[in-house]
């Protein structure tokens, strides 16, 4: 720590202040960064007030303990090795200035820190101090940005590649028509519809990427019926279990989730399919099951991937939309087959 003599150019007023060690004490004690000092054996000699906020411990609880108390298990032996190496050779194992390292909070969760290490001698003892700033929020923001970038890349790839197939079909069909087969022109309608559906789905998917809006308590039966009115069909049947729970969700999103599950069931099942919605027994949540052929050769790991489809006219986005909506709510969605072999989608809320 700097002594008052080092601080040239200070005013007499400040001069007297800095002579007062209480000033430094309070500066260190009340700073917003957590400061922890240890000896060569890694025993905590000092911790300021901010450790309460960052690590959940009172300063008193840390003093006298080993520093490893606030370290994730996997760093402990590395830490001792690094200190030993430094004491032996003076070689630093990591950058002492603003190094990013996770620490362990009293409640067990990990806190990402930016740490600056200092070393000084006090009363003949070698002391190491860490000045630690909680940067969890920054890290989270950065992750969010990375996620968004990834999504953007995916969308760029979707738009550029998934429109290529129908575009090729349109070019080919035009060539066939030009060569004299007028009937081919009628195929163009279907191809344009496919492109239209693709664009719609990509847009829906793009919207799902945003975080969930206002959530409210919604009875599953109401939203499932609403979804059936747009995604269901005349000849198919929707069966709702009596004991359907309410869930806390963004209404529009939840409806889109059901619509996509229903469409998936009807596209892969019989025209007169029965689709049922019921509560999960072993966990909070619900499932949608159909009496269709199940997943057959479909790759169950790929089901929720963008653009994966076994249906020639499908866009392959329906189930990715479902997965996105579930994820945005913090739910888990999985696909299994029912006892009767139909497709069963479980959503754990």
């Amino acid at each position, binding site marked *: 720590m700097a002594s008052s003599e080092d601080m040239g150019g200070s005013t007499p007023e400040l001069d007297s202040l800095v002579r007062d060690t209480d000033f430094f004490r309070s500066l260190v004690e009340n700073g917003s960064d957590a400061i922890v000092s240890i000896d060569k054996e890694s025993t905590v000699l000092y911790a300021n007030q901010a450790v309460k906020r960052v690590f959940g411990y009172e300063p008193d609880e840390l003093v006298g303990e080993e520093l490893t108390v606030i370290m994730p298990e996997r760093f402990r032996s590395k830490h001792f090795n690094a200190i030993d190496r430094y004491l032996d050779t003076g070689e630093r194992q990591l950058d002492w200035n603003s190094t990013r390292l996770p620490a362990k909070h009293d409640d067990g969760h990990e806190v990402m820190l930016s740490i600056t290490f200092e070393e000084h001698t006090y009363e003949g003892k070698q002391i190491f101090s860490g000045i630690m700033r909680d940067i969890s929020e920054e890290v989270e923001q950065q992750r969010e940005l990375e996620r968004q970038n990834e999504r953007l890349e995916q969308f760029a790839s979707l738009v550029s590649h998934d429109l290529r197939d129908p575009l090729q*079909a349109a070019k080919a069909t035009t060539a066939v028509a030009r060569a004299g087969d007028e009937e*081919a022109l009628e195929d163009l309608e279907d191809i344009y519809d496919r492109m239209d559906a693709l664009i719609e789905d990509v847009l829906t998917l793009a919207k799902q990427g945003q975080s969930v809006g206002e959530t409210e308590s919604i009875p599953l039966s109401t939203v499932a019926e609403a979804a059936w009115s747009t995604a269901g069909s005349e000849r198919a049947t929707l069966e709702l279990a009596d004991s359907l729970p309410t869930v806390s969700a963004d209404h529009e999103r939840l409806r889109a989730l059901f619509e996509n599950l229903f469409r998936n069931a009807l596209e892969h099942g019989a025209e007169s399919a029965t689709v049922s919605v019921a509560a999960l027994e072993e966990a909070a949540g619900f499932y949608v099951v159909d009496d269709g052929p199940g997943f057959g050769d479909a790759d169950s790991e790929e089901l929720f991937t963008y653009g994966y489809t076994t249906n020639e006219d499908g866009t392959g986005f329906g189930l990715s939309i479902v997965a996105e909506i579930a994820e945005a709510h913090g739910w888990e969605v999985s696909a299994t087959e029912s006892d009767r072999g139909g497709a069963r989608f479980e959503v754990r809320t």
Partner: protein
Amino acid sequence: MTGDTDRPVVLAVDDEKRVVQAFDIWLGDGYDVRTATGGTEALEQLDDTVDVVLLDRHMPDMSGDEVLEQIREAEYDCRVAMVTAVAPEFDIVDMEFDHYVSKPVDESDLRMVVDRLLDIQHYDERLADLYRVVQKIATLEEEMTVSRLDLHEEYANLVEERERLREETRDQIGEMDRENLDDVFEMIGSQ
């Protein structure tokens, strides 16, 4: 679609019927075109007279990737171009195709690809290998960012193989008549 002429034989495979019809229309006057709308049918149509296969990747009954594998396993002496909307990923590194074409293609694209592949048939095996590697590198480079390419060992291996083949074929390329070096070999021969 008879095989009794000297015209090169092209087999077009795509699950979209209109696409193979169009390929037939576009190539029909210069080549003997056969068509198939699925993998199984493609393998039935295949024999030693086929020079070039135009192969879609996403097909319901048997994927183009699988057809390609079977073609190579059976050691047919033909060149294969993947003609597809599937974005090339690093999985293409191990696929034994000669050319990768992104849809949509039109008549002139298609003719160019077929002509190139027919040219390659007359080249020495290592030149053909070089062509294949250069093709793959170009395909990956077009699709992916530099940072992503750098992360993958497969890409580095391809580049290394290209350098090795370039070195090995340097003399052959040097001996070739400049005028006969089409744009393909200008690309390869940028040494």
